[in-house]
């Protein structure tokens, strides 16, 4: 078995192990209801961290608007689920909701990618940030209703929809979508995370993934080697947006009132996800999953400490930064854990 293959299996193993541990804790009644409520968010933040790492770490383009794609996935899928709630049974409805959320996020990733990927570095980051905010604000001004005549749109207010008496407002501007069916659960979240990991890790270890990384490392040399730089940038950005859309689907089917608020889809949220990616290790997919889980759970678990919560959180950020990036610590880690691995390998043999 090759080293990359083993590394990938370890990554899947960690996720599955975490799933089993939480399931056991939950079944034995050791998990508070507050903690149970954090499990699904933990999975979708891990998923979007994987998506963003594909964009930042593998493609090498700094995007700080990824929550915008999550927002699109959330709203399109919630819209679909809400409309078809009485028509379709849960399982096929949720699967189609996923397909719709992912497809729309990918479509917007593609469209936004066309102008954005012509830019480099800081400029690209600023424009992605702007697009993320635009998506959020446009959705906030969106009114969509449905009655016997079909769909009605408005950008003014719910009254302007001009619906019949039986009409139902689905997206109510800044009040968003209320009453999306609660289809997400921890197991589905883990499954989506595993699929995202599978897609990204497989991609990295393929012809297309190598081309994407070649573009990141030196696009002039990539072009001279016959690599179509634009094609591979678009490919990575679109796939990344699609996975962010999947996170959005999980999100919207786990919340009673879905609003395009800054708390969930603003640039602060995007930067928080970027923090997961940077601290987990840029280009290190497994690291971003672990960092997302720890850094999402930590402030929530520290709620009891109230005043000191953010202080402890920031200390943890600094410690993680040192553990992940300091050359001396990396050396020490390799020495210690490398020996452990060797020993266990010998015992097995």
């Amino acid at each position: 078995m090759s080293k990359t293959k083993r590394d990938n299996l370890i990554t899947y193993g960690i996720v599955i192990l975490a799933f089993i541990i939480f399931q056991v804790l939950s079944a034995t009644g050791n998990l508070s209801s507050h903690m149970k409520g954090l499990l699904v968010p933990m999975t979708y933040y891990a998923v979007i961290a994987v998506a963003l790492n594909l964009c930042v770490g593998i493609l090498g383009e700094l995007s700080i608007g990824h929550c915008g794609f999550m927002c699109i996935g959330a709203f399109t899928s919630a819209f679909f689920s809400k409309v078809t709630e009485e028509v379709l049974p849960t399982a096929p409805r949720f699967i189609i909701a996923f397909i719709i959320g992912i497809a729309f996020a990918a479509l917007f990733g593609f469209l936004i990618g066309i102008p954005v990927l012509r830019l480099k570095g800081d400029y690209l980051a600023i424009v992605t940030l702007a697009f993320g905010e635009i998506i959020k604000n446009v959705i906030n001004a969106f009114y969509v209703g449905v009655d016997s005549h079909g769909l009605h749109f408005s950008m003014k207010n719910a009254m302007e929809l001009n619906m019949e008496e039986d009409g139902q407002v689905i997206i109510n501007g800044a009040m968003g979508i209320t009453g999306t069916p609660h289809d997400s659960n921890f197991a589905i979240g883990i499954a989506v995370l595993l699929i995202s990991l599978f897609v990204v890790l497989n991609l990295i270890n393929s012809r297309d993934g190598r081309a994407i990384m070649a573009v990141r490392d030196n696009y002039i040399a990539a072009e001279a080697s016959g690599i179509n730089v634009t094609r591979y940038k678009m490919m990575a950005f679109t796939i990344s947006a699609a996975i962010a859309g999947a996170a959005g689907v999980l999100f919207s089917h786990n919340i009673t009132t879905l609003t395009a608020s800054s708390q969930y889809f603003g640039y602060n949220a995007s930067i928080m996800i970027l923090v997961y990616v940077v601290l987990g290790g840029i280009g290190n997919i497994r690291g971003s999953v672990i960092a997302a889980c720890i850094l999402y759970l930590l402030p929530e678990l520290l709620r009891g400490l109230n005043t000191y919560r953010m202080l402890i959180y920031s200390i943890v950020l600094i410690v993680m930064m040192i553990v992940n990036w300091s050359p001396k610590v990396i050396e020490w880690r390799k020495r210690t854990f490398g020996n452990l691995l060797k020993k266990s390998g010998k015992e097995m043999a």
Partner: protein
Amino acid sequence: MALLEVNNLSISFGGLRAVGDFNLKIEKGELYGLIGPNGAGKTTVFNLLTGVYKPDEGIIKLDGQDITRKNTIEINHAGIARTFQNIRLFKQLSVIDNVKVGLSERIKYSLFESIFHVGSYKAKEKEMEEEALRLLKVFDLDGEKDILASNLPYGKQRKLEIARAMATDPKLLLLDEPAAGMNPNETKELMETIALVRREFDMTILLIEHDMKLVSGICEKLTVLNFGRVLCQGETKEVLADPEVIKAYIGD
């Protein structure tokens, strides 16, 4: 018919005529040198040949095919590969992955197969691995195949860059000052590598060089550029004995 035929190539930047009325004919299998003092327009010629710049006038033909207006990617697909004066490797990729990137336009499979590792993925990856190893062996880099390209010593980085260029299966290889920044030992090894490429792949090579020893040691024919114009063209010995060339290089 010559492999590369360049007729009346010209380009100006603003009012400056960087290259004017440039003519070049390289036969298959030749090792051709392009020399000239600093700022003579050598790298500009390379950039014109590889589609980085579009010429104002002139025609470039590779193997009878007009490639004048094509972009870098299309020119690579048409059969010209190059290395760079300042080495440009994919630094965060392993040595073998650098070569595999070079191979990836030759051994193809779809994005779907990339993501799900199904269909022809396994067979094509195996083919790619074998081909990459074969190339690395030629350049004596197979021992370092798994280390990061940025961790290679300078001379080997240059070799890897040539190996990557060869992976695209070119008809013509362009080397932009391959000996730049090398000590005499590394230069000697480089000369051997270039000789090896010709022997193993029956390759036609055009190289830009400052190092006169290298040029006179391996090139069969030379073109001397000065102020964007061809000063002298022909067999290496004759060119190097030309009083105009000596004047351009050493002064009166």
